[in-house]
């Protein structure tokens, strides 16, 4: 069995939040003493991802998806639990670790707003210390597949959302990382761009064996790309396995028409009360879907 790319055990992230009291009197009281509240965004996650897998990480808004991704990418320090990604502890070895991953946040740009796309890529080449020859090959490939030729000299602020997302993907892959994180990469995109991006990711996975973990609310992304889905709800993993097994795991799942309906049933707690586990496995049996 190959060594896992991602290995998380009992991963927890808690945030401290101020709770404001209502009304003017409450606001004045808050000046004197503030009540603190601990929120558990991620509540003991076990996750194992093996090389070459494409995993869809889904869950309702506020379920803890982004927080998980931010721990896996070294942005946030876990409150407890153990985590190894690409053989490193992300937050502790941050700078070394960053060289081995690519990240795209659909809601945040990583390109430099005022300069041409080409300049952004050049800058990333220097930052990741990519050899000139490798850089040319990689950018040539990316520009061709993502059709960036006409965008290279345009300042990022003048790109449309679809154009920018293609550039963001390319930017995340300049250093050809073996592991790619995508946080809602197709949000707000039209069908054409969506399809092109999916096609690109499939090829990337097939040709380079790039491991991909993506979060999305677009189940089309999941169906088109992922062999395995991990569903998180209120900070816990409620399902981990193949899409096919998911249908069977949800009571009456086979009778439902679309994947949307199946997932909605999961969000509404169809798996929570120890429903039929199915071969896919329920919470805790991480890596059940891994090959």
């Amino acid at each position, binding site marked *: 069995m190959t060594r896992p790319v991602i290995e998380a055990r009992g991963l927890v992230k808690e945030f401290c939040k101020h709770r404001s009291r209502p009304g003017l009197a409450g606001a004045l009281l808050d000046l004197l003493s503030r009540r603190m509240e601990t929120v558990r965004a991620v509540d003991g996650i076990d996750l194992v991802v093996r090389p070459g897998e494409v995993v869809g990480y889904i869950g309702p808004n506020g379920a803890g998806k982004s927080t998980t991704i931010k721990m896996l990418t070294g942005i946030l320090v876990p409150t407890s639990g153990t985590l190894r990604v690409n053989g490193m502890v992300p937050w502790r070895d941050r700078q070394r670790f960053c060289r081995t991953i690519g990240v795209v946040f659909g809601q945040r740009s990583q390109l430099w707003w005022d300069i041409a796309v080409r300049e952004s890529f050049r800058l990333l080449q220097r930052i990741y*210390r990519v050899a000139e020859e490798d850089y040319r090959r990689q950018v040539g490939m990316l520009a061709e597949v993502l059709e960036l030729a006409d965008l290279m000299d345009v300042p990022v602020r003048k790109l449309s959302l679809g154009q920018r997302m293609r550039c963001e993907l390319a930017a995340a892959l300049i250093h050809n990382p073996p592991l790619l994180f995508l946080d809602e990469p197709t949000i707000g995109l039209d069908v054409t761009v969506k399809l092109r991006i999916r096609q690109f990711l499939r090829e990337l996975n097939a040709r380079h064996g790039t491991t991909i973990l993506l979060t999305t609310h677009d189940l089309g992304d999941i169906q088109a790309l992922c062999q395995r889905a991990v569903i998180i709800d209120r900070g816990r993993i409620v399902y981990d396995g193949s899409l096919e097994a998911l249908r069977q795991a949800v009571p009456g799942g086979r009778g439902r028409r679309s994947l949307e309906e199946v997932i909605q049933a999961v969000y509404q707690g169809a798996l929570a009360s120890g429903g039929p586990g199915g071969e896919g496995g329920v919470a805790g049996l991480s890596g059940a879907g891994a090959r």
Partner: protein
Amino acid sequence: MRAVWRAYLELARVRFLAMLAYRVNYWSGVIIYTVNIGAYHFFWQAVYAGRQELGGLTAAQMTSYLAVAWMARAFYFNNLDREIAAEIRDGTVAVQLIRPYSYILCKLAGALGEGLFRLLFFALPGLALAWLVFPVRLPGDPAVWAPFTAALALSFGVNSLFNVITGLLAFFLLNNSGLMHAKRVAVDLLSGLYLPLGFYPEPVRTVLGWLPFQAIGYVPSLAFAGALRGEALARALLLQVCWIAVLGLLAALLWRLAGRRLVVQGG
């Protein structure tokens, strides 16, 4: 090792390029610098009111002092504090954390690019314009320019690190805009931008001696006026280096603490 610095140099270059993107900004920058020098020139004309000398400076020397102080400020001044605080508030700082570089050094590199841009494209044309209109006299002696350049480079370090620290406080305060504003006024006032520190009463000067402000603006100005030579010059530069070390350590420490309590706001 060289490859590491190349990345930061590239970051500085890109910021420089980004500054070029807005032409209106450029022209207004030149005008702002000229107007500032002019405004303080007229202000001091009124203060001198025909007197030959004040605090050991003639009116013409005062105008030159102001012109140089503003030129120096063009280089060491930056908005790193506001930039960092904004990135912390809107969560962009997360994007910076997935890059294999030091966040603080990356910000300093950007500020360097911006400072060079301001110096070359705002301050020098502004100074030339002021030179045509007001009695600004610049020394031709390289023995003045060399220490000035060294002091100016170090001022950049002190002021930028000071800004980094103020900006990073946003991690702990979530809204530090009042603090940043106070800092900005304090730096301009206490670093001798508006009036030479020699004009302050003795007790105030003693207090200022213990604060980093004079290491920002006053040292380059003194170096330029030729008031710093030999041992005094060495001591002034050493003072700047010490402040860079102290503030650098403090910034690194804050960053370390901040990493633990990072909350990425806005999802």
